[in-house]
């Protein structure tokens, strides 16, 4: 059900309206999903619309495989003005909307929008924020968390997305922090780059959210089929991240894909001088690991990160000269 939750008058035309989607009856633990906090994070908005289409078909009985048992709320477009401007931020205030939470119902437009979103999701049990990478980068689909307690680990396992990245604390005025401080089990799902839509990456996250809803009995899968393979997520600490930096400025030409494994010394790409076309620097991986973030916009400054590699320390079992049950391939 699409419901208008806030109407903000504008100086020159029709009011700006914030809509919430909701499915299921009250009385259940609520899953809230928010996307479009940045106006150019299109993957999240597409994924949210894909979920709306799916949940509508479940509720209307068109999808024969699932029944809705729980309650789901979504805000597909949070930063309405930025989206309408086709930019990350709303040019009028230049503020990052994800620094406006918990918001203020009496405040300016961004604060009022933040307040409405926060108020309508404050009773949630789980919260999922959908985003793309930072400007100029592409993210492999992965989960971001700030704590790795049992509840978060369970959510991550239920999503069946194989990469979970623990970040340092987020800003205290972000939606993530406010939800978490309100005891909502919160994760961010990140995929792709700003201003682009990657349907394949969205499908991976969509399937993850469906997996999670089935595991938490928000959805009932009538088919009762066991998944072929349970994905066990790998949890990465902040110390497991290695940034590969540009030693020169110029034009970066990538030679690998985000979301792949790289070996130390493997070529990631090269930086060329824009005037002469000559190669100025070969960019190589500085560690073995999973390439979670890769430069997408080719123009680079010196000292900018080109890639982020998530590394894993070997388990002690892997050093043993004989195979163990967990360490065996």
């Amino acid at each position, binding site marked *: 059900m699409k419901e208008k939750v806030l109407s903000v008058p504008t100086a020159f035309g029709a009011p700006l309206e914030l809509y919430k989607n909701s499915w299921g009856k009250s009385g259940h633990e609520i899953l809230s999903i928010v996307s479009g906090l940045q106006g150019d994070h299109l993957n999240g908005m597409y994924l949210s619309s894909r979920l709306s289409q799916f949940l509508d078909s479940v509720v209307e009985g068109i999808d024969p495989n699932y029944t809705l048992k729980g309650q789901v709320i979504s805000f597909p477009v949070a930063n309405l003005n930025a989206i309408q401007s086709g930019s*990350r931020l709303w040019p009028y205030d230049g503020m990052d909307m994800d620094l406006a939470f918990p918001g203020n119902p009496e405040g300016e437009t961004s604060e009022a929008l933040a307040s409405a979103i926060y108020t309508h999701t404050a009773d949630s049990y789980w919260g999922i924020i959908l985003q793309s990478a930072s400007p100029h980068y592409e993210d492999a689909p992965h989960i971001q968390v700030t704590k790795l307690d049992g509840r978060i680990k369970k959510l991550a396992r239920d999503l069946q997305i194989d990469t979970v990245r623990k*970040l*340092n604390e987020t800003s205290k005025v972000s939606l993530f922090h406010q939800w978490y401080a309100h005891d909502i089990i919160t994760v961010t799902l990140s995929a792709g780059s700003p201003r682009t839509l990657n349907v394949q990456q969205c499908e991976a996250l969509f399937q993850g959210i469906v997996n999670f809803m089935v595991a938490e009995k928000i959805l009932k899968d009538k088919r009762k089929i066991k998944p072929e393979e349970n994905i066990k997520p790998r949890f990465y600490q*902040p110390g497991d991240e290695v940034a590969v930096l540009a030693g020169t400025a*110029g034009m970066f030409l990538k030679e690998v894909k985000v979301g792949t494994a790289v070996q130390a010394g493997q070529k990631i790409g090269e930086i060329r001088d824009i005037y002469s076309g000559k190669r100025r620097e070969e960019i190589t991986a500085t560690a073995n690991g999973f390439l979670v973030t890769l430069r997408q916009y080719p123009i680079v*400054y010196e000292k*900018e990160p080109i890639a982020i590699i998530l590394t894993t320390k070997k388990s002690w079992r892997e050093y043993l000269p004989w195979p163990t049950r967990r360490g065996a391939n």
Partner: protein
Amino acid sequence: MLSQCIFSVETPVGPPVEIIRHTFASNLPKPVKRVSLVAGLHGDELEGLYICHRLIETLKNLEEQNAFKGEVHIYPAVNPQALETGTRLWPFFSVDINRTFGQTNTPSLPSEISKILLEDLKSNSDLAVDIHSSNLHLMELPQIRIIKDFEKKLVPLAKFCNVDLIWVHPHAEIFESTLGYSLNQAKIPTLVIETGICLRINKNYCEQIVLGILNLLQQTGTLDGDEPLANVTPPKVVQPGYVTMIQAKNAGLFVKQTEVGQIVTEGEKIGDLIDPVEGKVLEEIRSPCSGLLFTLREHPLTSKGAPLARIATEEPA
């Protein structure tokens, strides 16, 4: 004056981005005080640059008179590419550098710069002043804003600075990623000056602050001199709860009828909020109290809830 580049980065097609620190050294082997002045964190705030220009000019003369008992560091343009484009944010990154101090998650060039700047200031300062203009929307009377937690240490220093107002306000979490907060947390007393409006230079306000900073340097023993370098006016110190904010109840165009710095009385008209399409006056904006009008909306385009004015009152608001 000694100029030093504290950070340099090669750009894809143009000259490097450099952050420069000018140093006026002490005549004493151990400086009495080391004071740092920072401007241009936001590229559209030009008054800080002008204040630094005027200070450098004056301090060069004082240097010839051997007036330095302490050390003064001036960082006049710490966000050069934003300054060159006249935008608040570094345009290539769309990042507000003054929200990247402290702990950050993703490595980036702006966060690297903020880290280096913070470390440089920490190792060179006993006292710092971070100079800002207001945003594009509001005109501000020269003022220093102090978070309540730092009041005891900062208010006596702020009183030297010749501002009209010292506004002590409660802590808000949004400040935690700013330069001023990070330095104060690191036990380096830091005053955050807010004056005028972005993209403009209000010469009178700037001269007022230049005199204030010279006075601060003299009062802290950084500059020698028996004769006062500047006569300063004591500011109004406003505690939390003594500020009334007027917000728009409608969206429209705000047409002001007064100026900042006025003492307004209860019921006095401040402006009109008009509907530009229908030709109606949506709201007559009147002061709900008496006091010093220290903030006034300058950008006419107004959304519902937007601040129109702030008034420092004698009675709790």
